[in-house]
């Protein structure tokens, strides 16, 4: 029972959404009443040795950090690969050591690492593990043991992935989409062990992720603290939650396609393999359809885009709201937009396949569903900028990342309308326009969010602030650099330069692009190098950063309200928090301060004019 149970003050404005009195008969007059806990307090395993505390640890926060570090490590490998690719594209004379095989292997591994092993793992495994229990007021994830296994499965998956660099033939070079038949045929680099290890690694990743995903979902659905309704959750949790739902339903398709392709490779089945003539000989395949793989892959692949984007949407909403000292505009619509985007993402997959030779009529269906998604997405953008409107914007590093996100995301979103609309896609698909689009919208934009989130939550995780000054340098290098990589790249696509070209030779309409390629490559080197500013910042701030203290950003949501900073295992000390309001009560008229935390009972701020609770 809440300690404020006997306090009988009322608040002035009260929407019908307050849960007080919703089920509790006879106590409706008491606004601070929150009904008692449904389930007993979670009993947790507390590690004692170094191994159980930091290695095989069951604490979601440690697991989150483990995910974060490992994902970042693979991300840095992906970054280095992208440097090598850009070296070839911009300054081929300096990249003499690189053959076309190498180039395609780098392209493939860069794509796969960044999409799956970096972004997905970082958002869901990293931020999800750290933030979900804290933000919904749980002691830990509901199945800590399974959660731990999830991370170690991911660890093994990364190991297998990296091992493929060292097998004969090298890693697979079939593009991150792994389209058969070429993925498993001679003529594509790494079509031997490379592709097999890639499939194995993906299957392991999916298995591990399923374990983690079950945890996130059940924690959000079944382990919220008292008073925490779904409509009082921070949008971060909504984004990660919906993305996890998508992952749970989309990864099966990836698992199945990876399994079937491994069987094609290892057993000689013909799921995806039609009759093939190779070097004058007919191979022992026949009757399969490569397009089936594409359908399966994109049935996973499109939700995967939103698995990366939705947590970014959620996190950015929280960051913008906190740092412009204003409630997020249209919270309900934001939630519904996330849910609708998530649901629709299962009905749009073949817009990646307009020119794949599938049934021509599908173009009508998928163009329509795809453009429908544009509406809720646009609403989210409007709500972000309307949150800035009449706010009190702190132009700190976190806010800069948010603004950078809005610019890059809107840019990438608009080019998405080009590619989603079936006819417009025909000339642009498979060109650099596509590369520019998806890097802008699911590379740079989520990266901006990650960086913003790192600067925002670093004080919570470590108890120290990151340096603002270094942060600003980091931001401007990254934002301006990344923008100048990908904005001009669209125009290469307009010219018609196809993707995945190791070299353009002297095609008449691309010779003019040489200068641009050099410029883009230079920018890419600078942006990549700028990331080491962050690493330096993190390392030094761990030691000499300003101590953060409690709630340094004056935020409302539960993660800042733990008894200790950084939070300990079990998060909440003796007593779980009791939630009385949504997390966006900033600048409420009549309040003494410009924020009212979620745990503040109505009676304490009785004089304010709260609209939504």
């Amino acid at each position, binding site marked *: 029972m809440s300690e404020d149970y006997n306090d009988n003050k009322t608040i002035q404005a009260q929407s019908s959404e307050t849960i007080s009195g919703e089920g509790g008969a006879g106590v409706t007059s008491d606004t601070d009443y929150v009904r008692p806990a*449904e389930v007993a307090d979670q*009993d947790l395993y507390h590690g004692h040795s170094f191994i159980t505390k930091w290695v095989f640890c069951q604490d979601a926060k440690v697991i989150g950090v483990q995910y974060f570090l490992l994902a970042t490590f693979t991300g840095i490998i992906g970054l280095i690969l992208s440097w090598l690719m850009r070296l070839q594209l911009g300054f081929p004379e300096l990249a003499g050591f690189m053959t076309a095989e190498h180039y395609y292997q780098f392209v493939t591994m860069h794509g796969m690492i960044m999409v799956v092993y970096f972004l997905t793992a970082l958002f869901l495994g990293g931020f999800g593990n750290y933030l979900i229990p804290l933000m919904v007021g749980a002691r830990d994830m509901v199945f800590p043991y399974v959660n731990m296994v999830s991370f170690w499965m991911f660890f093994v998956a990364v190991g297998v992935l990296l091992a493929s660099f060292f097998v004969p033939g090298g890693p697979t070079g079939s593009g991150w989409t792994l389209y058969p038949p070429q993925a498993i045929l001679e003529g594509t680099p790494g079509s031997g062990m490379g592709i097999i290890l890639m499939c194995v690694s993906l299957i392991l990743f999916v298995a591990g992720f399923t374990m983690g995903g079950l945890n996130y979902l059940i924690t959000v659905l079944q382990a919220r603290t008292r008073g925490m309704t779904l409509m009082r959750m921070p949008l971060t949790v909504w984004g990660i939650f919906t993305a996890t739902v998508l992952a749970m339903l989309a990864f099966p398709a990836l698992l199945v396609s990876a399994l079937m392709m491994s069987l094609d490779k290892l057993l000689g089945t013909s799921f995806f393999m039609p009759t093939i003539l190779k070097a004058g000989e007919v191979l022992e395949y026949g009757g399969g359809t490569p397009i089936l793989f594409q359908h399966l892959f994109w049935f996973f692949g499109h939700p995967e885009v939103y698995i990366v984007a939705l947590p970014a949407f959620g996190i950015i909403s929280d960051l913008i709201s906190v740092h412009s000292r204003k409630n997020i505009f249209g919270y309900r619509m934001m939630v519904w937009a996330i849910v609708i985007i998530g649901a629709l993402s299962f009905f749009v997959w073949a817009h990646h396949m307009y020119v794949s030779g599938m049934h021509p009529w*599908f173009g009508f269906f998928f163009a329509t569903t795809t453009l429908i998604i544009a509406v809720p997405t646009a609403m989210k953008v409007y709500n972000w900028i309307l949150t800035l409107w009449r706010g009190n914007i702190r132009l700190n590093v976190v806010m800069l990342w948010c603004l950078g996100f809005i610019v890059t995301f809107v840019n990438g979103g608009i080019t998405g309308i080009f590619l989603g609309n079936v006819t417009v896609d025909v000339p642009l698909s498979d060109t650099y326009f596509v590369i520019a689009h998806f890097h802008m919208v699911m590379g740079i934009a989520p990266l901006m969010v990650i960086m913003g989130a790192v600067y925002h939550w670093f004080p919570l995780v470590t108890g120290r602030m990151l340096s603002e000054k270094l942060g600003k340098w980091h931001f401007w290098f990254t934002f301006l650099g990344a923008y100048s990589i990908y904005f001009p790249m669209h125009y290469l696509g307009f010219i018609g330069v196809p993707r995945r070209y190791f070299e353009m030779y002297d095609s008449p309409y691309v010779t003019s692009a040489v200068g641009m390629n050099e410029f883009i490559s230079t920018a890419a080197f600078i942006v990549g190098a700028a990331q080491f500013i962050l690493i330096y910042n993190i390392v030094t701030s761990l030691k000499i950063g300003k101590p953060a203290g409690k709630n340094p950003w004056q935020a409302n949501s539960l993660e800042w309200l733990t008894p200790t900073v950084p939070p300990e295992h079990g998060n909440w000390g003796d007593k779980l928090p009791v939630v009385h309001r949504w997390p966006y009560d900033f600048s409420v008229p009549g309040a003494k301060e410009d924020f009212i935390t979620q745990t503040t009972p109505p009676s304490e701020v009785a004089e304010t004019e709260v609209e939504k609770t």
Partner: protein
Amino acid sequence: MSEAKKEQTTTHKIGIYLWIWGLLFVLSFFSYMVDWYQFQGLLRWSLILIFMFLKAGLIMAFFMHLFWERYALVNVLLWPMTAIACFVGLMVAEGKYTLFSRIFYFFVGGQ
């Protein structure tokens, strides 16, 4: 791990389980008969699907207790099936199109 409060779990009469069990046997027998009598065409398809969905429905509703669960859970479990339905529908069209283009171009000659 939490312990849900235990006292509330009521169980159902054994009769209902036996009934459903019997019904499942009968339905399985019927669907076997579809093959035994070699029904063909639309009749075969509709019979197969009817028996299949009846059996699946019975197992989910009673053996898996979905019939007694609250709508919140039931809806969460059943709505995602629309994505599967869409996938199935489109792949039926795609399969037919692939077969058509193979026969049309490789056997008929594409004229």
